């Protein structure tokens, strides 16, 4: 038992004292609400086995229907608190990964030249020996190995990090679209180094700066469930949504009002709204007076810098509209300002400041702090990939846990070409693609339903969750979990690697995690909505029950239900922290109008030849981690009916000037390259902006991935995507 006295312990003990109060009127109200929730089953029917979707960081619980030992369909796990039996399109498509005809059938080593795609099948023992000998050879060199994977939290990702760290490698991750990325802005304002939890469901008015609420925001199934309830819920009025977005995203399409603004203009509008709220004293006085901090200074700066006329000139939005938005936002009872996970720091700061002005912290329909501190920060893969592309680093060994480094649009134009400079490339992807084609050694991993899982789910209001499950089926092919592969290599290497990797299989890591979680004596296995609510009430009342199970019973319960959840979070956390640190710390709004104006007009010199600013976006169907899910290609460009190909969204004026309409084929030409796309005319877009869907082209990938022949990376000149300008040519 730990000798330290944590915050949670404090609440545990003080909670038991307060139990009588909490289970009084307040408790009864909450229990009545719990009673009204669909209670649902508390265990899965026999034909269904629990597993975990690994397509994004949400880690939704899934259940797999088994018929005569074969998986037939994937649906949401009704016990999972994130989705409660609901599942997005990508999650359901996951079964196609298991049956994919183009999976690697086992470990292989390259025989021809790199890129020739000539391979020899080898045994796992041979594969282990090859990687071990490569890694033991790198110790003497200064060229550190580099390991890249899609961001994930939990013991399996930790195992990967431990191995590569022991091999003196740099470990980097392609970032997930979770609230973890918003931590810096939240920390700066409140002083709490936790993830912010957005209570979308209970908001009455949402002003969203690019947050893809109806698509892929933070934890997509949670976001969509919350959106449905925000819109329509018995006993409440309809929630109003205003979307500020450069393109007419699915969320903008759903919004009551869409303001087409580029990312820089969004910062100007956010501070412009803050200025009006300050000028007209429309902020939440009770909240701002109590947690003033440097609020007066912030208000003075923002009012002085962001004059309504200037904001209007920079954004193209009439002053009267800006005034109305500020008044609407501050007049509703539970407003929330949402922001995309990958927003710039300036926009994030502006959004958290707006939330402070309307008193959104620690109230229903606002923002709470996650209950536990997040794991240590992780390195974004963009840095090392750019360093390889620029020739600054040349890793002796490059390890790719999956194909994510290759597919993200935000990275350099052709990571595969850059990766070729590595001496030795090892790929753990279950498929061949551009990167694994260049690899020297293929160590294919299982697909999700064949794997053990223990993944920390993206932080959202249902609570802290770790999705855990055993494999649903035996591996269809001769594949192996990377954790097991690395354990073998570590033993072959001996020394620090062997010491850092004491496990043998992925199962060991998952069981170890379950032991750790069991010892925390809080939360419990996934269960029905009613029982989860009951657990929350017990914990809030100081009654921590889960310690009564034996470790074995706890393990069985968690694996049988598909995960562990602790719904507890203290909803006065932000306010008590602000009290302790003397209030809010607003970041300076700076001279952003000038910066934005500069950004807006910076590349106008290139105007004649490349008149349009290029924005690249991903949709829920195009951003799936796994490109070998054929059904998702049918979902592209819907409902306008542009499946199976990339499309470019242009304003009505642009279409008229080019004499084209939706469905026409155009060539998008940048200083760096060209690609063809289908036109989608969107009325209301800014006429000097075109938005291109990023659908990864993988001509060396599986049979479906190969059908996409070109993607937005072909347009990238050296430098960032945001600065790319293009012209359109009729085909």
């Amino acid at each position, binding site marked *: 038992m730990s000798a330290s006295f944590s915050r949670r312990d404090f609440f545990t003990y003080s909670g038991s004292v307060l139990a009588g109060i909490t289970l009084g009127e307040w408790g009864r109200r909450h229990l009545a609400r719990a009673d009204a929730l669909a209670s649902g089953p508390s265990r899965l029917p026999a034909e269904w086995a629990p597993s975990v979707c690994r397509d994004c960081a949400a880690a939704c619980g899934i259940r797999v229907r088994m018929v005569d030992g074969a998986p037939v369909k994937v649906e949401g796990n009704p016990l999972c608190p994130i989705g409660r039996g609901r599942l*997005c399109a990508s999650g359901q498509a996951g079964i196609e990964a298991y049956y994919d*005809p183009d999976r690697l059938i086992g470990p292989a080593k390259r025989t021809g030249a790199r890129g020739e795609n000539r391979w020899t099948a080898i045994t796992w023992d041979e594969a282990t020996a090859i990687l071990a000998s490569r890694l033991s050879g790198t110790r003497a060199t200064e060229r550190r190995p580099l390991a890249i994977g899609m961001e994930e939290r939990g013991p399996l990702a930790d195992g990967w990090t431990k191995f590569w760290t022991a091999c003196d490698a740099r470990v980097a991750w392609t970032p997930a679209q979770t609230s973890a990325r918003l931590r810096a802005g939240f920390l700066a304002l409140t002083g709490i180094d936790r993830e912010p939890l957005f209570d979308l469901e209970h908001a009455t008015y949402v002003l969203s700066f690019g947050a893809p609420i109806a698509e892929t925001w933070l934890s997509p199934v949670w976001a*969509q469930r919350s959106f449905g309830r925000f819109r329509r819920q018995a006993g409440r009025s309809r929630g109003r949504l205003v979307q500020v977005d450069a393109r007419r995203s699915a969320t903008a399409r759903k919004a009551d009002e869409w303001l087409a603004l580029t990312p820089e203009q969004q910062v100007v509008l956010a501070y412009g709204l803050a200025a009006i709220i300050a000028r007209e004293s429309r902020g939440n006085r009770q909240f701002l007076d109590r947690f003033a901090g440097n609020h007066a200074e912030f208000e003075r700066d923002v009012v002085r810098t962001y004059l309504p006329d200037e904001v209007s000139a920079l954004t193209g939005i009439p002053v009267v509209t800006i005034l109305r938005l500020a008044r609407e936002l501050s007049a509703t009872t539970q407003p929330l300002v949402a922001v995309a996970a990958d927003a710039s720091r300036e926009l994030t700061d502006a959004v958290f400041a707006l939330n402070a002005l309307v008193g959104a912290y620690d109230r229903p329909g606002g923002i709470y702090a996650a209950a536990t501190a997040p794991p240590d920060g992780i390195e974004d893969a963009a840095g090392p990939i750019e360093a390889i592309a620029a020739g600054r680093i040349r890793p002796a060994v490059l390890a790719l846990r999956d194909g994510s480094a290759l597919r993200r649009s935000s990275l350099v134009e052709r990571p595969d070409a850059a990766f070729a400079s590595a001496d030795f490339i090892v790929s753990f992807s279950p498929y061949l693609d551009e990167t694994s084609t260049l690899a020297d050694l293929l160590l294919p991993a299982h697909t999700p339903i064949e794997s053990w899982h223990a993944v920390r789910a993206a932080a959202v209001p249902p609570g802290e969750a770790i999705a855990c499950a055993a494999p649903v089926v035996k591996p269809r092919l001769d594949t192996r979990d990377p954790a097991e592969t690395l354990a073998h290599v570590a033993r072959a290497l001996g020394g620090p690697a062997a010491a850092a990797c004491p496990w043998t299989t992925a199962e060991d890591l998952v069981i170890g995690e379950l032991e750790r979680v069991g010892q925390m004596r809080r939360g419990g296995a996934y269960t029905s909505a009613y029982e989860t609510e009951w657990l929350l009430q017990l914990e809030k009342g100081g009654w921590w029950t889960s310690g009564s199970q034996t470790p074995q019973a706890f393990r069985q319960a968690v694996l049988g239900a598909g995960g562990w959840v602790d719904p507890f979070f203290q909803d006065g956390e932000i306010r008590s922290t602000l009290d302790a640190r003397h209030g809010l710390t607003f970041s300076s709004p700076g001279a952003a109008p000038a910066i934005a104006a500069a950004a807006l007009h910076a590349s106008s010199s290139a105007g004649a030849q490349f008149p349009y600013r290029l924005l690249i976006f991903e949709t829920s169907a195009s951003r799936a981690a796994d490109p070998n899910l054929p059904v998702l290609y049918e979902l592209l460009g819907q*409902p306008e009916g542009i499946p199976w190909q990339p499309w470019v969204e242009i304003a009505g004026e642009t279409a008229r000037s080019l004499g084209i309409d939706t469905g026409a084929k155009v060539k998008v030409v940048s200083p760096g390259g060209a690609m063809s796309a289908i036109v989608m005319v969107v009325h209301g877009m800014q006429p000097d902006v075109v938005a291109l869907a990023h659908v990864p082209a993988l001509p060396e990938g599986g049979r479906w991935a190969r059908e996409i022949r070109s993607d937005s990376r072909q347009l990238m000149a050296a430098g960032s995507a945001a600065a790319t300008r293009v012209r359109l040519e009729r085909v």
Partner: protein
Amino acid sequence: MPRWGLVIDLDRCTGCQACVVACKHENNVPLSTSAVAAAGRLMTWMQLVPVEMPGRAAPTALPLMCQHCDRPPCADVCPTGATYLNPEGIVAQIYPRCIGCRYCTNACPYGVKLFNWTAPEWPESMAGMQNPDVSLRPTGVVEKCTFCHHRLMQAREQVAAEGRELAAEDYVPACVQTCPAEAMSFGDLDDPHSEVASLASSPRAFRWMEELGTKPKVVYLREGE
């Protein structure tokens, strides 16, 4: 006798297409390729279509599937009785009876009846993911949404074995079950206590192309205030 119906709240619907994938996998609707899509022969029993709605700036993404009309034009023109309105209000399609004349595909104003120009194909490795409860349709027949009728048959067997009445949660089509925004409800429109009956009487309720007199049993709830 129940009269099955579906209510879709367009204010909740996000257009995420989870229902489209659920339907494809549940009903063994074959996968496509870019060539199939280019030929305009995508097989989707359920798809989103853009429609202009009063008071909405952007076209609404309308989830469209067989509307299970109470006066189905497709059944009126079918020369063999392959498509007909069954006693529970489901517009049924009997594949062995279908001669592929495509009268029904032309008669249906919703364009949701699909003709099999070719035999459905899956890569050999994917045969295992076919749902054994739903038959594969051969070349030359018409197919469409069945309200996951096989789930009703299974539910009936289950409740008979358990010796109880069919409850609302026993029979839920795959699209309704997965909808992340909880925008879809399914049940007996004739049961005044059912959720669908209550939603269908909402002032927001409308039926798609109801002016044609087809009397659809798919009810939409309009977006907006």
